[in-house]
Structures are given as structure tokens and as C-alpha cells.
């Protein structure tokens, strides 16, 4: 982006004659730090200033999420109940499917499958909603991007907040169903918030990565539903880790969501998650956070132009 043409002619620049209201006395005015906009050599903005800016914008992030949540099921009869009802019905559909394919003999085996399906769908929906919402966040926030200045990461982040606000009630509903289905409550459940936190970090990274992708390749919109569908089937969400097809198991373990589902499975069985799964989950989350943030921040200045 190097332009070397000489600056255009400009007239009257030296004549500084502030007439009228501009010539008032300003002795009492407090000095303020100016904001400077300049082309930067590297694509990255000053990270510390950026994060502080973003932190100051949390009321905006929160308000955008809240108003969207309020509006999302505004016109349906069941209203906010759909937040839980939608993934629950999805789990019911998958359970129906599994029952047709193979019938389990004992009631406890059936309950185990059903509870696994329910939390599997809930947990998967949390990540896939973040990816879909994050991917759409910039293109649907077009008016905001073109007309106001704020750290653009606020847009994918508010989709994260929205998805989390949709996910947490489903988690509460699951724990009730967990009890109803007679599944074990063990000490391992204390690790549940930890796993949710690591998954949230992964989701932030994914949202930051997919948001600019969508701006530069609109095809992503059409592809994403298929990508997430394949991702659902290749993750141990609708089946347990033990049921992983042996032929592909060594490959499927490289799925970033694999350690998450494996750890959740242990937690919901009442056990503490294996340290290996937790470390693997942390590594995936960190990787996507770093890559997502790098891609997002280097491309951020182009959003207003390309969108």
C-alpha cells in the first residue's frame, strides 16, 4: 500500500484565522492526550492498548448480546424456552435414530446413551454456535463497522457471550435430567466449570478465526453448516469414546473437540477428567486463540474496506 505521489495542492492552510466562537478563551481546558492514526509497519496493532480498549468496551459487548438474546425468540409462543427446547429436541431425534439402529437391552444402558446424547448435543452446540455466530458477526455488523470506531473483536466476542448465555441454561437443565435418568453424581463434577472455561477459550479462538474468513471468502457461509455437521459426527458427541470406530480412532483423536468430549464424558460419569485430556484441551484452546487472534488483528484494518 505504498503511494509515492506528491501531496495534492491545498490552499489556505497557513491562514489560521479562527473567527467567531473559535476565538473564545480556553485557559481552563484540561490538556488531553491526542489519538494518532498512522499507517503501521506490521499489521498488528499495539496489543496492550488494544486489549485495554476492548476491556473498556465490555458494556457494549454485554448490551449487544443482551438485546440479541431478548430479540431472538421474541415472536415465538414458547419464547426463551426454545433456548433449551431446540438442542433437547435435537438430542431426542438422535436418540430415536440410535434406537432404530440398535436397541439396548437394559434401562440403565438406555439412560446412559440418552444422557450422553443430551450433553453431547448441548456441548457441541456451544462450540458450533460460537463458530457460526463468530463467522457472521462481522458481515452482520456491517453498519456498526462502517459508522463507528471500536475494537472489532467486540463483535465476535459478543457472539461468544450470546452463545454462552444460551449454553449455561441448557447445562442446568441437563444436570436435572442427569438426576432424573439416574446417572451418577460424583466428585468429578467439580471439574465441569473448568472444562466449560477451556471450551470457552477454544470458542473465542475459533470465532476470531472464522470472522475474518467470512469477510474475505463469502463461500464460508454456505460451507459452514456442512463443516459443523461433519464435525459433529466425527466427535464423540453422539456416541461414547469407547464406541469410536477402531479403524479411524487414531485419526479422530486429532479432532480438537476430542479431548473435550472425552473429558466431559468422565466428568458426567462422576470421575475427575484425565490430566492428558485436560492438557490436550488446553493446548487446542491456546493454539486456536493465538492463531485466531493473529489472523483477526492483522486483518482488522481491512474490514471497513472489504465488508
Amino acid at each position, binding site marked *: *500500500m505504498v*503511494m509515492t*505521489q506528491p*501531496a*495534492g495542492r*491545498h*490552499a*489556505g*492552510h497557513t*491562514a*489560521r*484565522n*479562527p*473567527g*467567531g*466562537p*473559535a476565538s*473564545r478563551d*480556553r485557559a481552563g*481546558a484540561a490538556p*488531553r492526550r*491526542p*489519538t*494518532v*492514526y*498512522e*499507517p*503501521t509497519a506490521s499489521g498488528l*496493532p*499495539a496489543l496492550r*492498548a488494544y486489549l485495554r*480498549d476492548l476491556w*473498556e*468496551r465490555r*458494556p*457494549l459487548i454485554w*448490551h*449487544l448480546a443482551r*438485546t*440479541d438474546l431478548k*430479540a431472538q425468540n*421474541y415472536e415465538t409462543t414458547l419464547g426463551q424456552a426454545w433456548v433449551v427446547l431446540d438442542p433437547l429436541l435435537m438430542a431426542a431425534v438422535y436418540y430415536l435414530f440410535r434406537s432404530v439402529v440398535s436397541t439396548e437391552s437394559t434401562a440403565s444402558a438406555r439412560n446412559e446413551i440418552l444422557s450422553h446424547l443430551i450433553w453431547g448435543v448441548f456441548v457441541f452446540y456451544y462450540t458450533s454456535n460460537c463458530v457460526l455466530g463468530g463467522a457472521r458477526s462481522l458481515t452482520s455488523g456491517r*453498519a*456498526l463497522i*462502517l*459508522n*463507528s*470506531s*471500536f*475494537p*472489532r473483536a467486540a463483535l465476535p466476542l459478543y457472539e461468544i457471550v450470546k452463545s454462552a448465555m444460551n449454553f449455561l441454561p441448557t447445562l442446568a437443565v441437563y444436570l436435572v435430567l442427569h438426576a432424573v435418568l439416574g446417572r451418577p453424581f460424583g466428585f468429578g463434577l467439580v471439574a465441569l466449570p473448568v472444562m466449560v472455561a477451556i471450551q470457552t477459550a477454544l470458542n473465542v479462538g475459533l470465532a476470531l478465526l472464522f470472522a475474518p474468513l467470512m*469477510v*474475505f*471468502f*463469502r*463461500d464460508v457461509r454456505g460451507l459452514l453448516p456442512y463443516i459443523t455437521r461433519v464435525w459433529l459426527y466425527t466427535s464423540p458427541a453422539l456416541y461414547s469414546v469407547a464406541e469410536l470406530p477402531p479403524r479411524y480412532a487414531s485419526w479422530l483423536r486429532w479432532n480438537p473437540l476430542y479431548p473435550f468430549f472425552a473429558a466431559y464424558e468422565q466428568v458426567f460419569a462422576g470421575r475427575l477428567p484425565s490430566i492428558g485430556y485436560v492438557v490436550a484441551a488446553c493446548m487446542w484452546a491456546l493454539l486456536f486463540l493465538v492463531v485466531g487472534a493473529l489472523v483477526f488483528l492483522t486483518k482488522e*484494518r481491512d474490514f*471497513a*474496506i*472489504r465488508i
Partner: protein
Amino acid sequence: MTATASPATRPEPKDLAIALDKVWVTFKTTRERKKPSLARTLQGMRDPAKRSVWVEALRGVTLDIQRGSVYGVIGHNGAGKTTLFRAIAGILPPSHGRITVWGRVTPLLSLGVGFNRDLTGRENILLGGLTFGLSADEVQAHFHEVEAFAGLGQAIDFPMRTYSSGMFSRLAFSVAAHLQPEILLVDEALAAGDAAFKVKSMDKIVELCSRDCTVLIVSHGLEVVKSLADRCVWLEQGRVRMEAPADQVVTEFLTRQRVDRSNVVALEDV
């Protein structure tokens, strides 16, 4: 957006609100109206000339804008007026040069910034204030002023999709003007309201200036610029054609228009 605080290099910074130093805003844009897609990017790799064109929206603009003044920006469509505002607001980064801004910029570019049409006017006042970078408490403190000035009555509690464009712009202007702007950028926002509201908002702009706020207005309404603005810049094809007291610039602009009009038949309305 790169916002780094650094010492100003220009003299008398305390009297300035905005300083532009040889600012170029150039960007690549696709020639076609279609959105970028994978297929088109791959095509573009084979034939770079087909892919995109460089748009030079601002070409070396240097301006100093005094604090507490009303500053007019005039020029034909595509002269770079909105790009200038977006660059000052930090929305479009300069590709060359430097923009220094003293104070918080409240851009009122296209009407109703971050408004969500499904929410009520009341909820949108908060949303608008937050997009301008205020805290929720600051918005609440001025809530009644915004509401009173917009004068929407009962409609403030209706969803904004039921609003007319005039009502929309009234609320947008009220939010921008009442939430302690330091530098207010008004882009044709006065065009949509009715006559009474126009007068009211012009009075408000004068009042804001008396409170040390700097107001920049883009307008095709030359009389508005002439009566409100202290100084004015005339942009032509991304360059400063003239920068002087507002009445001189408007007079010169009109004179040139008459000269051009004799040559060109189809001319946009002034």
C-alpha cells in the same frame, strides 16, 4: 485500528481538535459489485488486473481544525467527504500521512449507527451511547435530554422498525448531540428531519460549540454550511481545492458551479 498516543508535532496543539498531515486513504476494491468469494480470488490470482482497482479516496489532505468551531466540508459526490470523516473517526486507516485527534470523536455518519430495528427507541438510546464509547451510567445521566430533544412522545417505546426515516434521524441526532460529544461528525444528518427539527438541531450545534465541542458537517445544503460553519473545506477528487472562511468557500464553489454548468448539461443539484 491503530490508536497510539504520541506527542504532537504540530504547533499550538491545544487549540486544535483535528490535524491531518498529508493524509492519503487508498484502498483496493473489487471492480465488480459482487462479494469476494473463493472462486473469484482464485481467478484473481491468475489475472491480477481483473481482481481489483485502487481507489484513491483522499490524496494528501492537510487540514487543521480549530477546537470549538463548526467546520464545513463540501464537494461533489465521491469527492472524499465521507472518507474524510471515516478516517477522522478511526474507521478507515490512513495509508499515508498522519491524523491526530484531540478528544473523543462521535461520528453520526449514516443515520442511526448501531441501532437495532427490533428494539425500542429507548433501548436504542443506550445502544447508541455505548457504540459512541460512553458508559451505561453516562448514557442514563443524559437519557431524558435525549428523549426530550428527539420529541418522539409515545413512539420512544415502540420498536424502531415502526419509525419513519425522519423519526430515525431525530433520535440518531439527539443521541449523538446530547451524550457529551467532544468532536461531532455530522454527515447529512440534518437532511432527513422536518423544518422545525432542522432549526432545532442547528441551534443545538451552535450551543455545542459554545461548550468547546468541535462540529464537522458535511452537507450539500450550502446555506446550512454558510450560516453554521466558521471555516470550510472544498474537497475535489480527494484533494483540498480550497480551505477558507465558510462564506468565501461557498461563494467560490457556487461561482465554479456556474462556470461548469455552461459546459456540462447534466449536473447534480447543488
